[in-house]
């Protein structure tokens, strides 16, 4: 076996999407994937220690995760490009890791012109020159399918898991689904996992009131989805018995966004232009939730996230116009669990009282 020459690729932890990264690396590109360990306080502290002081928190967490991946044996790191500071993450992280003394190959998507299809092939060929492109394309699409299933099931999970009548079966089904995705090797594995979890969700008894509290979550792309980064906001909130709605996920933002460009039309009164990479979607969804009579909105971002700070005045306008309470949460590397819980409980009490009165 030529196992010695095969790359060991790693991508920093990002919510539960690493299952798809693993699938694409291993099944589509025929390289080994080193899964960085789940993010812990140590990851955060490692990253924060070596990062510039006032860079956004996802930079620190992904840097920490990269260090842990290198410790776990990765020899190639991948970093994505982006429209905000994210587009510059790669070069600075590479420099920091080199200065620390790590040796590795760094694939920085910001170096490529991601508007062109040819560039994607270049990247794939760089990761594995012997890759079979037709097989890659097919397997890559299966990885995408995995992300779509994950997002769909996660959305459904947080709409109902707070009302589980069995005391844990709902969560267990979701956990089983995640495990299946992390270990999937074929398309059939993915489809089976999806079918199984759908079936469970339909059969597990749910005890939902006729008009449950509904809360919409909007926010910055990394922090709003990554459970460690937002201190398990969604688990905490749904545990109180709240129906949670979050539009922002990889499926919507990347695979379906082009079809939803017209969302700008609905928020003409709030913004004329695209204000940032996720601004239009967040303002649109916040307005959508407000119009549908949600009981509250939560805006999640990491400290210093420029685009999301700029969205906040528009959210304040929505809050005033539709009389919907908005909780603004900012996460940095010091945010405490207890402080968040207190704020969430207060927010919950407030929207619950409003619901009874109004």
């Amino acid at each position: 076996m030529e196992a010695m020459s095969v790359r060991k690729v790693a991508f920093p932890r990002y919510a539960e999407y690493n299952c798809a990264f693993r699938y694409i690396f291993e099944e589509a590109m025929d390289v080994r994937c080193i899964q960085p360990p789940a993010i812990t306080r140590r990851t955060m502290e490692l990253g924060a220690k070596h990062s510039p002081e006032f860079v956004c928190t996802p930079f620190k967490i992904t840097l920490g995760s990269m260090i842990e991946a290198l410790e776990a044996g990765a020899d190639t790191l991948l970093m994505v490009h982006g429209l905000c500071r994210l587009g510059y993450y790669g070069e600075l992280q590479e420099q920091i890791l080199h200065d620390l003394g790590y040796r590795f190959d760094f694939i920085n998507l910001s170096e490529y012109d991601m508007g062109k299809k040819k560039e994607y092939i270049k990247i794939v060929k760089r990761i594995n020159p012997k890759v079979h492109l037709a097989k890659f394309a097919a397997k890559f699409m299966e990885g995408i399918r995995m992300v779509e299933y994950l997002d769909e099931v996660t959305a459904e999970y947080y709409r109902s898991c707070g009302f589980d009548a069995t005391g844990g079966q709902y969560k267990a089904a979701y956990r089983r689904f995640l495990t299946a995705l992390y270990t999937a090797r074929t398309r059939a594995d993915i489809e089976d996992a999806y079918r199984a979890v759908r079936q469970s969700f339909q059969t597990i008894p749910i005890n939902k009131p006729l008009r449950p509290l509904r809360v919409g979550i909007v926010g910055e792309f990394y922090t709003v989805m990554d459970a460690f980064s937002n201190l398990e906001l969604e688990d905490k909130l749904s545990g109180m018995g709240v129906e949670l709605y979050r539009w922002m996920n990889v499926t919507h933002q990347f695979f379906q966004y082009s079809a939803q460009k017209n969302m700008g039309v609905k928020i003409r009164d709030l913004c004329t232009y695209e204000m940032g990479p996720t601004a239009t979607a967040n303002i649109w969804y916040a307005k959508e939730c407000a119009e549908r009579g949600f009981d509250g909105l939560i805006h999640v971002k990491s400290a210093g996230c420029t685009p999301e700070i700029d969205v906040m005045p528009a959210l304040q306008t929505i809050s005033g116009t539709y009389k919907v309470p908005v909780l603004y949460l900012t996460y940095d590397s010091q945010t405490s669990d207890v402080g968040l819980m207190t704020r969430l409980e207060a927010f919950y009490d407030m929207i619950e009282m409003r619901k009874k009165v109004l």
Partner: protein
Amino acid sequence: MEAKKKPVIGLPRAMLYYRCRTLWHAFFDELGVQTVVSGPTDRVVLERGSSRAIDEACLSLKIFLGHVEALCGKCDYIFIPRVSSFGRHRNMCTRFEALPDLAMNVFRDSGQRFLTCDLDVLHKKDEAAAFLDLGQKLGFPPRVVRKAYKTAKKAEQTQYKRLVRAQEQLYKADGLKILIAAHSYVVEDPYIGKTVTAYLKKAGAIPIRADLVDREEAIKRSGELSYTCKWEMSREIVGSIVMHYDKVDGIILLSAFPCGPDSMVNELIARRVKRVPMLNLVLDSQSGTAGIETRLESFIDIIRFKGGQL
């Protein structure tokens, strides 16, 4: 539109005003539109802006909102362009994309009207198109607007060349030369950046501005230091450092807290540019300059000590 009485346009003296003032003034003058500029930044402007801004926003935005508030009710429109990109890897900080909508939401209740245009080369809207749109919004025929833009652009280029030439002279001067790497709206702002340059001059050093540089060449050369840097104004500064770091005695990385691009680019500069003494100075909304002066003083002492002059 208001064809009878020409509107008065307000220009906030903050952010891109420092970079584009010649162009803006010349353009509006050429069209015969009256403009009014807010006064220089002072403590009151900053305090008013801070009370309007989200706490975490950068110092520059707080100052900007203070200037917008100062103009509210004093003009028919406040001009805030959206500036997004000049090409691939030539973006602006997302804040400049958000500025017009941000201001409109913050000042929604004031009844103040705003005037904007969209500069986004990646989406096929270059500067000429943006100004054409702007002029037409004011009710001028395209032919007149195009001519006004052309004249204004020429005026800007002449003026800018003069500025660059003056800076180039400074590199050849004798004395302790310190390159200040900062955005124009930081280094030129009388309340924040000017205090730094003023102190340096008082201490006998020659402050040179990195952002006043042949922009095209600087953009090209910035790749030598940072190959994926994608912010237009940061690239100009990075390129300028590449071009000049061996001609100066020290570099001050001056930024406004917590500037997004600077938080990363300055870190990279500090990691990659060796051999030149460097000071990373972050300005925040604290009043009083004693702390900054102490740091500048010790920085100058270090340079002199290194050169054997102390």
